[in-house]
């Protein structure tokens, strides 16, 4: 993993402590680090040049000179400029009131169009729409089958227009949507290289035929410098209204997204963040700016927690805590809530500064599963009253969970500690659910 920009700038400026102001040479050194960080994140080299010039102009200003922590000041400027470059606030999907509304997806091969089409259909359905998927990729073997299989999983209809060409499928797909009373059509097209004239002409012809409300270009977050060439060609030949960035669940910094926004002016509307069909999220420029700089994403973490944690279970737990009861069953249900949020390494990656952990620090993904198995191997009576778990019971539990007695002891110890903590929490009057998040450090400020 690359170091994050804050650390790098900190290293640059730490040599300067004690001095009051930044010299031109200091700013130059800082700008070299900014440039390096952006290039390593795959931001287009031209965009980097312009960007660095802009940041530099601001950084030599009076604010920084007087600032006690010039490093933080420069990071703040970089972050602001980066967010602005990505379009400031989030950009939503604009659909007209005509029925059906039409969304068309375009992009290079392997960028994830078909998966994105299914995810988008799923998202729109959650918003009360009734989507129809139209499979226009008549080239890649089994591409239409793929969309149909995804549609089946989601129970969303797919129009496949057997034997027709791509333009005709798109046109007939709209008719099919009207006949079936679907109010949104998502047209999935074949992946195509931006230098392939015939294929670009086909995409333009599909656009012409169905007059979509929105054309979205699907871009892989792992794309390098070539992203802007592809995007510029699609903008010119087909034209599009926005971008879906896919595969952001990996560790690619996604500088390509920034470059595409900077070069074509098209906003990023959605981000694909996982293999599951609900892993498509509205895009947040500020969070992306932090990601590009390697600064973690506390806001996403909190949203994920709020999404995942079952409100009923949480208030139930609160009531029990207030009365001073915390059993192994409660412990188990808490563990399950954490597991629902995803893999531990994902969660940790969202914590700012986590990339400073030693690279070899192994995250034991199995630990939670083992703990769960151990608690599940206990009888209800044991879970309610752990003090009765004696030596022979420990042995039985260890056998049941396929672990050593030592592991069972560890879990019981952890539980006792958690119980103690919970008792203290329970003693705080009004220790409500919302409070737990509001109190988290680093949420409101930019760093």
């Amino acid at each position, binding site marked *: 993993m690359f170091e994050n920009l804050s650390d790098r700038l900190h290293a640059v400026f730490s040599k300067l402590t004690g001095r009051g102001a930044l010299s031109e040479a200091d700013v130059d050194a800082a700008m070299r680090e900014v440039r390096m960080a952006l290039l390593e994140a*795959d931001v287009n080299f031209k965009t980097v040049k312009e960007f660095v010039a802009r940041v530099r102009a601001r950084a030599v200003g009076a604010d920084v000179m007087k600032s006690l922590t010039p490093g933080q000041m420069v990071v703040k400027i970089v972050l602001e400029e980066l967010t602005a470059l990505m379009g400031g606030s989030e950009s939503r999907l604009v659909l007209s009131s005509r029925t059906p509304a039409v969304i068309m997806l375009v992009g290079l091969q392997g960028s994830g169009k078909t998966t994105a089409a299914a995810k988008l259909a799923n998202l729109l359905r959650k918003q009360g729409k009734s989507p129809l998927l139209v499979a226009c990729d008549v080239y890649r073997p089994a591409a239409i089958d793929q969309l149909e299989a995804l549609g089946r999983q989601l129970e969303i209809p797919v129009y496949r227009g057997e034997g027709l060409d791509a333009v005709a499928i798109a046109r007939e797909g709209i008719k099919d949507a009207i006949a079936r009373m679907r109010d949104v059509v998502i047209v999935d097209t074949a992946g195509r290289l931006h230098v392939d004239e015939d294929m670009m002409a086909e995409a333009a012809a599909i656009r012409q035929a169905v007059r979509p409300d929105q054309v979205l270009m699907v871009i892989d977050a792992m794309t390098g410098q*070539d992203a802007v060439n592809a995007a510029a060609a699609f903008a010119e030949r087909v034209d599009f209204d926005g971008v879906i960035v896919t595969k952001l669940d990996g*560790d690619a910094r996604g500088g390509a997204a920034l470059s595409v926004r900077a070069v074509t002016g098209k906003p990023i509307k959605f981000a694909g963040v996982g293999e599951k069909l609900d892993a498509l999220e509205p895009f947040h420029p500020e969070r992306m700016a932090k990601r590009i700089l390697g600064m973690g994403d506390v806001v996403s973490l909190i949203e994920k927690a709020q999404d995942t944690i079952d409100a009923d279970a949480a208030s139930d737990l609160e009531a029990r805590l207030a009365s001073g009861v915390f059993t192994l069953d409660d412990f188990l249900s808490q563990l399950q809530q954490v597991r629902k949020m995803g893999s531990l390494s994902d969660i940790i990656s969202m914590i700012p500064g986590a990339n400073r952990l030693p690279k070899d620090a192994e995250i034991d993904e199995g630990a939670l599963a083992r703990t769960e198995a151990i608690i599940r191997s206990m009888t209800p009576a044991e879970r309610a009253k752990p003090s009765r778990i004696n030596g022979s019971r420990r042995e039985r539990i260890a056998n049941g969970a396929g672990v050593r007695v030592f592991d069972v002891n560890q879990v019981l110890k952890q539980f006792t500690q958690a119980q103690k903590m919970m008792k203290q929490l329970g003693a705080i009057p009004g220790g409500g659910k919302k409070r737990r998040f509001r109190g988290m450090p680093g949420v409101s400020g930019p760093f």
Partner: protein
Amino acid sequence: MTQPWYKRLGNGLARTRGELQGHLNVLLRRGPDLDEQFWEELEDALLQADMGVTATTEMTGRLRDTAAREALPDATAVLARLADEIAAEVRVPGDDPFTSGPATVLVVGVNGTGKTTSVGKIAKSAADAGRHVVIGSADTFRAAAIEQLRIWAERAEVPVIERAHGADPAAVVFDTITEGRARDADLILIDTAGRLHTSSDLMAELVKVKRVADRESPHPVRVVLVMDATTGQNGLVQAREFHRALGLDGLVLTKLDGTAKGGIVVAVSRELGVPVVRVGVGEGVADLEAFEPDAFAAAIVGESPAGS
């Protein structure tokens, strides 16, 4: 085999010769002077080819020294030297896992790089060359991946082994190798599901697949990573993680027929010493070819390949 791939790059599909492809030619057209602007533009061109900031800075720095020390006369001489250096970086010794004898080859990579298509093309060319090929569809996750591979198997007229969607990929590997043994196959190709190198569960699944292959295969087991030429700096992290988990024997660089130059493989070869064994230059069956370090380097530097 008709024309070499670097020649076909120029014709075939009508293509917009982007500003990029000619970037370094522009450098030359500007004049042969080795001024500050030349060096800056050279650096930009390498960055643009996805060589990465570390490799770019190192290489241009070294070239500047060489140019001064050996009194290289002009930009043309510098570019020729640069092409040689890049070719040297990617000229990594290693057997071709597909043609150097009987083998079981696992084809791995992140999502959307072209694994299934590459397996299909390799199966077809090996079968055409008279080898006994069996392919296994261990991508039991992606919708219709099995159907996609089945179509390629029909084209190549080779048997394909599959299990239901959602089945254990290691079981598919077992079945495929068993079938391969029964048919006396000398090339067993296994297509695996695309996975991000950051997903520890899926990487662990792949390690298990490899373990089963190692245990069951009558032939040496090779692992080939498929990487998309449009991949940026994350490509190095990808290669590193797959190499750490499985040990890589080769890279297949796909989608080199666009404007992307695939410079990230220079970084991969430098750091991991894994050779590029095939490049994908088009959609046709014959468009997956042997890798030519000199032609690759010439394309990055923007020179016309020798002899064209």
